[in-house]
């Protein structure tokens, strides 16, 4: 149930992010919308790796591998999401640096004023 709920939340987050990127005039809010879209993708992937009544995918001492394999959540999406989070921060930093440059050049963060 939490898996389906997380997909619904991810869909809502994606739509809000898309709306912000398309409709908001301020560049910072557009970047925030892009981070929302990234968060939605991350939430979807983590939701895919969830297993009902499962355990965190860490093999503890004394635990049988068969028991671990039967219970643990799927770890591959988690590894992908971890990479995506780190790369997302780096790209966001790059976009923000470009925003500062645009502001220094035009004196505004409003897309309507920049495009004049």
């Amino acid at each position, binding site marked *: 149930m939490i898996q389906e709920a997380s997909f619904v939340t991810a869909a809502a987050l994606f739509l809000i992010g898309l709306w912000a990127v398309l409709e908001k005039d301020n560049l910072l809010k557009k970047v925030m919308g892009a981070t929302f879209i990234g*968060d939605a993708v991350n939430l979807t992937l983590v939701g895919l790796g969830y297993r009902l009544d499962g355990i965190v995918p860490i093999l503890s001492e004394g635990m049988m591998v068969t028991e671990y394999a039967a219970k643990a959540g799927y770890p591959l999406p988690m590894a992908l999401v971890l990479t995506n989070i780190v790369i997302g921060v780096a790209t966001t930093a790059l976009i923000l640096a470009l*925003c500062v440059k645009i502001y220094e050049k035009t004196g505004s963060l409003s897309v309507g004023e920049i495009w004049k």
Partner: protein
Amino acid sequence: MIEYILLATIPLIAAASLYPKDLLKAVIIGTGIEGVALAVIYQMLLASDVALTQAVIASTILPGLFAIVVYKCLRWER
């Protein structure tokens, strides 16, 4: 139960963060609070490593980066 409340509030927090004219407030709500709520959800979805990373990034690094941009540019949206 708390996971469903959090899952319902995350899009609301995201939407609410796009309305303030004060960009610093928008940034703290949109990247900070929303990201930390997501970290809690990741923990409940059995992804502890992702939750740890998300908590660190959403609570300090991303709001810090956005706050630097707000400081260097404009605080109030025109």
